[in-house]
């Protein structure tokens, strides 16, 4: 790919450095060192899960490096009616590239590039073996459509690793709203032909109860719609968040291979092997997908050896990323709690005169503030 041009002299300088023993890379890293990676989750407030990731950013001014932004948005879709919905939900991924990330290529080439990235991400992540269990809402009726959108803001090499890491982080961060199915039933006391109105109050609406009406002759479950039982709740985490795959890009200058290449290094490598590993259990990478980019060729034997090596790198990436994601969860919980404490204080000040709300604030101080403040907001 001609994302960056290097002269023959630069190319041979890089190649000779990689093949030397000990190997020398342009910035002094060893072959299997990554640049530092900055990661933050929950960057898009309106998304169900999001992450921002930057590989190799300059620590002082934050410039340079490969930067991607990933966001997950859930959408309800009908399974019936030819809208493309699938029972149990589906996953659609797309990658778009900011033109400023690739200032030197034409818009047509940019489209091609986006398509390439989308293809790899979509085919890997929407594979049935990785499908999360909790994307269904109503069997055969409604399900969640999970849209994963990734934007490439800057590319300084190793874009595939960045895409997969950000995708994993965003999916890890994703919360699926809890739903509860609703069905309409005839009132037991007195036959009433007309269906119950949704706004008709709680007495009219039976929620997930197994009492079967004598007038109900349908075989299907009566659930025809759903509601969100707890509006303020973010929801439950997406199932199988430990499984999401990571990509290891091995850049080959035979016989050596190296990781986390810069653009110049990528241009100097004859072939790039992308290995996508998913993690059924921690420390157990399973090969989920594989791509080879570039004009070089590779023998089966060396490919096998590379996959084995790649598994090791994937393990290391996995453990580092998981611990970072847990840290991020912790940090955000902390932040949310601080915000919450502030909110409660505000409640207290605002409602000190109102006796009902005084009780709520009392409750809040006794540690039940989750509920209390929720109810307050409803008031």
């Amino acid at each position, binding site marked *: 790919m001609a994302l960056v041009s*290097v002269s023959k002299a630069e190319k041979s*300088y890089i190649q000779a450095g990689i093949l030397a023993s000990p190997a020398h890379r342009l910035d*002094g890293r060893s072959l299997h060192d990554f640049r530092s990676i900055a990661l933050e989750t929950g960057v898009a407030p309106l998304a169900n899960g999001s992450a921002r990731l930057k590989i190799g950013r*300059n620590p002082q001014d*934050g410039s340079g490096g490969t930067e991607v932004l990933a966001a997950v948005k859930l959408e309800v879709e009908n399974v019936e009616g030819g809208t493309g919905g699938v029972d149990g939900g589906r996953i659609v991924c797309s990658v778009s590239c900011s033109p400023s990330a690739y200032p030197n290529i034409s818009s047509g080439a940019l489209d091609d590039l986006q398509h390439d990235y989308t293809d790899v991400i979509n085919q890997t992540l929407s594979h049935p073996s990785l499908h999360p269990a909790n994307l269904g809402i109503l069997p055969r009726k409604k399900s969640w459509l999970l849209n994963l959108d990734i934007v490439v803001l800057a590319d300084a090499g190793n874009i595939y690793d960045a895409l997969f890491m950000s995708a994993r982080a965003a999916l890890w961060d994703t919360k699926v709203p809890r739903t509860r199915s609703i069905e309409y039933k005839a009132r037991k006391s007195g036959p009433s032909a007309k269906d119950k109105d949704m706004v008709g109050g709680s007495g009219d609406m039976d929620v997930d109860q197994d009492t079967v009406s004598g007038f109900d002759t349908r075989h299907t479950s009566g659930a025809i719609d759903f509601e969100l039982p707890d509006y303020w709740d973010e929801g439950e985490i997406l199932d199988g968040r430990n499984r999401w795959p990571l990509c290891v890009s091995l850049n080959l200058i035979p016989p050596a291979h190296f990781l986390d290449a810069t653009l110049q290094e990528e241009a100097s490598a004859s072939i790039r092997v992308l290995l996508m590993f998913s993690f059924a259990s921690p420390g157990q990478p399973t090969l989920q997908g594989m791509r080879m980019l570039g004009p070089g060729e590779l023998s089966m034997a060396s490919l096998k050896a590379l996959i084995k090596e790649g598994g090791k790198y994937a393990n290391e990436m996995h453990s580092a990323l998981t611990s970072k994601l847990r840290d991020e969860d912790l940090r955000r919980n902390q932040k949310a709690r601080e915000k919450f404490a502030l909110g409660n204080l505000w409640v207290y000040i605002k409602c000190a005169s109102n006796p009902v709300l005084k009780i709520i604030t009392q409750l809040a101080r006794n540690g039940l503030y989750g509920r209390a403040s929720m109810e307050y907001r409803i008031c």
Partner: protein
Amino acid sequence: MSDFKMIAFTSFPQYQETFKTPVFEEDGDEMDLDENGFLESDELKLAWPGESLTSAQAYMRGHGTYVDNDEVIASVAGVVERVNKLITVRPVRTRYNPEVGDLVVGRITEVQARRWKVEANSRQEAVLMLSSVNLPGGVQRRKLESDELQMRMFFEEGDLLVAEVQAFFGDGTMSLHTRSLSYGKLRNGQLITVPPNLVRRLKSHFISLPCGVDLILGLNGYIWISKHVKENEREGEEGFDAEAVYSNRNDNIDDSTRIAISRVANIISVLASYSVPLTDTILLEAYEWSVEQEGDPKDLLQDHVGETLVTTVTARG
């Protein structure tokens, strides 16, 4: 291979929200500029692109601004400056503004009829005419038709070269020349890019560090770091050896030189990220400091090492 962890994650810096919403004085007479002129005090004013600065009737628009609806509006992000009635915005980040005589490092992007297009971090691509390069077989040789047909023998797409700004065309495009023995194709090293305003005009932009590393500080922010070539071994002293001048092959570079080149490259990127202007003395001091620390070149990329480097070097300078 190393005891270091292969991969490490960090966090983005958490910025404090220090933006103040501008307070507009509703009741004040906006046209009353004699009393309360624009930017009269010595305060530092930053502008965003599209930000309205002042009235166009009372002030003139300078660089980095445009007039719309009788208002002077910033077209770049940067510092607002005022000289009498002239308002300019000095951009935070800018491309290279060429001047005749500047030394630049550029990359060939296109081979055209009797000319090469050169990318040199300027607003437009520079032009290198076939008539302004040294041709093989003597400096004073006339150019032939055969030269036109084999232009890729001299420079092809992707090649890096060092050249001087010779003149400007009517549309502001710069024309380069390499008619000197010290100019021409680059090899035996690596390129590093810094903001162009960090490269000051020096007595000489060819710097030889005592560690066996040569530096070419292009005024366009492209810096070539390469293995030192002895003065008497330079190509083309006598007879002008075209093979060597337009060669794509690197010499043998030993490990210590490679490490030194990486070290210099990392020092430059650290200094550039702290916006330290690059001069030969600062680079030399930084290199000496870095060698004293007895670390690998890659250690320089760690935050605290970079910070110590910058404080040490700027304190001495």
